[in-house]
């Protein structure tokens, strides 16, 4: 078998697997989209094409006294600030843990990971009390400020990535007289793009979909986030069996996430080229 036929064959297998998987990943989502255009009487039917199709569910959604632009704006600000804070502080910490040698490094890192282990259901109240002391309850500050003091998930993710960056690059840079900060800013940040993009996606998504924290820290609608605003009538729609409107709401709330993902994923294109870097 020649190299080319082998490649074509492998490509075919790849497409076959990916397509089969894509159908499974996509089917529930398509159903959601379809349901959001169905009339309520059809919400349990097994068809993917709404017949008749209607925009009433979206109209109903916007008829709620919710001020969607405002909710959307609040969500966008909080999510963006969270992304900025996390990218910056987690990358700096990850660089320290992956590259710099200092006493207590392992202990500190372990401690950091332990913070991931306690479910937020029980940490909510202690944290709330801290923000109450700081007089920040009732504002959006408690939602994005913590992003600026690092985080176990992001630090861990970036540290794992930074550890795989060839050390020759650092040694070469040091020989050329690069400082610690320059090593971080000129080598690790640019090379860490794929991992930073991954973290940006996760962080944005986490902040956007967060229900618990905006709920307790911020006042109610309209001064809250889109997720809280949607949850506000989700109970009623679920209990009232209005799944068509519920799906319309869910669809609208994830559009920004899909956009963010679509643009951020361009960072995963190809591997590092050792030869392409200045030695």
């Amino acid at each position, binding site marked *: 078998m020649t190299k080319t036929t082998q490649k074509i064959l492998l490509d075919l297998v790849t497409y076959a697997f990916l397509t089969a998987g894509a159908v499974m990943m996509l089917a529930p989502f398509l159903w959601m989209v379809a349901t959001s255009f169905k009339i309520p009487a059809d919400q349990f039917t097994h068809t993917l094409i709404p017949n008749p199709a209607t925009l009433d569910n979206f109209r109903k959604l916007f008829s709620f006294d919710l001020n969607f632009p405002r909710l959307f704006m609040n969500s966008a600000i909080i999510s963006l600030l969270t992304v900025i804070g996390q990218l910056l502080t987690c990358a700096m910490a990850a660089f320290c843990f992956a590259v710099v040698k200092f006493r207590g490094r392992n202990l500190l890192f372990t401690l950091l990971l332990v913070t991931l282990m306690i479910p937020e*259901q029980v940490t909510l109240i202690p944290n709330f009390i801290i923000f109450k002391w700081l007089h920040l309850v009732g504002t959006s500050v408690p939602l994005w400020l913590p992003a600026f003091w690092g985080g176990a998930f992001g630090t861990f993710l970036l540290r794992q990535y930074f550890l795989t960056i060839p050390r020759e690059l650092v040694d070469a840079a040091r020989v050329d007289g690069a400082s610690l900060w320059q090593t971080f800013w000129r080598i690790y940040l640019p090379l860490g793009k794929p991992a930073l993009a991954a973290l940006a996606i996760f962080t944005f998504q986490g902040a956007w979909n967060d229900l618990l924290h905006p709920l307790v820290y911020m006042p109610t609608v309209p001064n809250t986030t889109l997720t809280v605003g949607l949850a506000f009538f989700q109970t009623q729609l679920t209990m009232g069996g209005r799944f068509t409107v519920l799906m319309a709401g869910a669809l609208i709330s994830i559009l920004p996430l899909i956009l963010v993902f679509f643009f951020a994923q361009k960072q995963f294109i190809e591997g590092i080229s050792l030869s392409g870097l200045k030695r």
Partner: protein
Amino acid sequence: MEYGLRPLGREKFWFWVMLIPTLIGLTFGALGSILATLGLSLTNWDLLRPPTWAGISNYLALFNNPAYFKALTNTFKFSAMYVPGVVIISLFVAVLMNRKIHGVSIFRTIYFLPAVTSAVATALVWNMIYGRDTGILNYLLNLLGQPSICWLCTKNALMSVVVVNIWGAIGEGMIIFLAGLTAIPREYYEAATIDGAGTFDQFFSITLPLVTPSIFFQTLISTINAFQAYDYIYMMTRQGQGDSSVPVVVFSIYRNAWNFFKYGGASAQAIELAVLVILLMGFYFWLERRYVVYE
């Protein structure tokens, strides 16, 4: 010997600049959360009155609590299926997507969709898929001449929710692995090709060892997620008043803290859960020493 740069002279300043946000966070995170939870677990606190000292009674109570034991068993069963499922499937998907093929960004977006969609909406859709009389899955089974299965009845519910949770987590795992795969220098593959190594040889001799840092990360994070899984399980299997046919530990923590006025007891459950995860994590780190390859 552990690798590491030593900050020199003035660089110490930059080192602290880089580390200080995390140190502040640890003070808040570790002291504010862990120590507070630890402290509260030694009290009886109903949230409304000042806590009263309870010693280790909350921990002792866990041993005589069949509901908690059942929840713990479910959590372990859930994790045992969920963690390998997520890691293996998302690695497989990421490796396929890392090949240079057309339309890959569309595939990536499709695979990521479940991860972004609101849990309430997807849980509803899955309920419609799993429905015993009305669901599409049994409809298809019946077409094939098979009898209907009650997917969300107590007997099968654990399996069914594991499938949905894996489905929802593949997108995130895929991203971790895609990022990890980009870190493998292209030259390695070029050299291997010149040496005549085939695709599968390359996967086992280059890709797999070099992606172990990501596998390590994903396994650890999936384990934590498995131990704290809540959304889908709650929405698909809830019954009674906040109970579930697959009650997991987080259910028990949530209900004790928020419904039954037993924040101390809930904290004790959370600490015990954390200790179990930490033990597991110790095991992972031992595995890391042996098997994970860093550059």
